[in-house]
């Protein structure tokens, strides 16, 4: 494919950001935007004469104007938009969480694989420079056999009892700390280790919210006896900025990583990688992070460029596939069910 014609469905906060990023990709041509709210479309249409505006995303998907779409509607609509895109042979980048049910996620993963269509979900931390270094170290077996992981995602997002607006106020629609934040750490574990095997226990709790949870914790088992304790809290007022922290405990050492950098502890020097015995700290800004265009961090760009490159070259994406995202979807729902049983 010479040029990839791209459309955006859902032109809210994420849609606005994604347009800016993907429009800088040299092989991408933006051809269409769909949103049910006409206010934004009215404002920008004068300035984007080559982009066709749709109020109904179905018309966009049937227009023949796009090879690929970026879906950033409220999460409850992801399933039907992805499905219709697949039926029309269109490659899809879908925002996270993938859908709101494991069955729907699985159906879409099967469909896109069968049709050989590029598919990716917006689990953006897979493109974070620190977590990529962690992945590299784990794959190189730097800290030996991993037995336990502590995974935390903390923020001060929700600080009042004021009910959330719109789709964010209901868990069934993809609202709540588990979906909005937890899903990112669950996916990271999928990225590092693979699919979960068993959920031993989970707890959802509230601090301010009434209709969704503010805290989610879970004990989960992975292959090779690896266990993980997840803790997500979006009402933690001590964090000015969201903090995603991971601690890996291995036989030969430990890795502690967060969005600002990583610390490695080795029981013995590793000559091959030139890492000494004891603690070694690498701040985020010491890691090379080549990125073609910066908007809101480097990860969003590298994520969307990976998608566009995959479509252009007709190959699988290096990002989170529908398959991997459906495994995370399953974990989310097992966590919900497990909590309800208690």
């Amino acid at each position, binding site marked *: 494919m010479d040029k990839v014609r791209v459309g955006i469905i859902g032109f*809210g*906060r994420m849609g*606005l*950001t994604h*347009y*800016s*990023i993907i*429009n*800088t990709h040299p092989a991408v041509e933006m051809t269409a935007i769909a949103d049910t709210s006409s*206010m*934004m479309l*009215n*404002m*920008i249409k*004068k*300035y*984007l004469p080559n982009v066709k505006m749709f109020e109904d995303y179905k018309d966009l998907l049937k227009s023949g104007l796009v090879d690929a779409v970026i879906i950033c509607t409220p999460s409850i609509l992801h399933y039907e938009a992805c499905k219709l895109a697949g039926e029309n042979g269109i490659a899809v980048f879908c925002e996270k969480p993938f859908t709101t049910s494991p069955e729907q996620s699985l159906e879409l993963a099967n469909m896109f694989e069968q049709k050989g269509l590029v598919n990716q979900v917006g689990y953006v931390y897979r493109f974070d420079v620190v977590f990529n270094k962690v992945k590299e170290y784990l794959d190189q077996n730097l800290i030996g056999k991993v037995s336990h992981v502590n995974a935390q995602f903390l923020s001060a997002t929700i600080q009042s009892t004021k009910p959330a*607006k719109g789709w964010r106020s209901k868990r069934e629609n993809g609202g709540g700390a588990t979906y909005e934040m937890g899903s990112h750490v669950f996916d990271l574990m999928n990225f590092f280790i693979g699919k979960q095997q068993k959920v031993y226990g989970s707890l959802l709790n509230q601090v301010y919210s009434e209709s969704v949870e503010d805290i989610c914790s879970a004990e989960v088992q992975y292959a090779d006896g690896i266990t993980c304790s997840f803790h997500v809290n979006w009402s933690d007022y001590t964090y*000015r900025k969201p903090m995603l922290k991971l601690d890996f405990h291995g036989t030969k050492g430990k890795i502690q990583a967060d969005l*600002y950098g990583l610390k490695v502890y080795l029981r013995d020097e590793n000559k091959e990688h030139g890492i000494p015995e004891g603690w070694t700290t690498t*701040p985020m*800004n*010491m890691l090379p992070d*080549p*990125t*073609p*265009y*910066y*908007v*809101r961090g*480097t990860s969003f760009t590298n994520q969307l460029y990976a998608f566009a490159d995959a479509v252009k070259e007709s190959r699988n994406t290096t990002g989170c596939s529908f398959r991997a995202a459906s495994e995370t979807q399953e974990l989310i729902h097992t966590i919900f069910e497990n909590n309800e049983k208690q």
Partner: protein
Amino acid sequence: MEKIDKIIFGDNQFFGINHRSQEKAEELLKRFSDVHNILKVYDDAFSCGIKAVMLNSNDRAEEICQYFRDHKEKYSDIAWYPSVPYPHKYADMVNELGIFPAINEVLFKGNSVGGVLGMIGKGAAAVFTKDAMRMMEMLLDVEFKIYRGLNVKCYFLLNPITDLVLGYNIKDVFEHYCEYVQKKYKVLPGFITLNMPYLKRKLEEWGIDNVVICSTINKAGFNMFPSKEEYEKAIAANDPEKYQLMAMSPLASGSISPKESFDYINSLNLQSVVFGASSKNHIESSVELIKL
């Protein structure tokens, strides 16, 4: 084009931004929660010969500006390089209300912009979507009000906005911003960006010049997109009569000494550098190292 100051004193250190250490940032945030500690650092900077200040719009900017307005005689020779908008304010409001209600709130609640009061109400944003440029002018007026009465030399658009809008490849927005700032405020238009080579290329393509471009430039190549090499090429090829280039975060690398960091800055075809420091010693030694 009017020449900008070679050395400009920045403000990141006051607001809990430290590229090297989160702990250090928290510590400074605590110290500078008292505005007197901020003002004292400014006096230190001025006593080291610095005559220019870059200030980001945030919830402290108003009280800082008020102090300098109240003591105008004492600081009459200081030039100001403010940057707008105040991103967190907008981000919070947009999260809470949605984009257009947030714009409505900024323009019409508590900010009585002359002549448009009659439009208060939910229809106002709808009216402005027909004229996005007029909406931009009004948002800028609200932001610039913080700096009224100060000797402003250049108004910068902050990088989250510059880079987001730049991605859309819309010439009108950049052209209109520059014209408005020059005509109405009689100051230089400026852009802060993390994608300097891309921005410069676009501005050239659009025939927009007489602009100040501020971007992260440091020896380690931190926050320079797409690459340090592209920056060096763009800087070497630049005509400073068209674009005055300003380096920010020259020390962001952390592992590289101030001497080596500023030697790198000095070796480039740059017109200005903005740096921040919180002790008089550090300010003094930095000023000595800068030779643009």
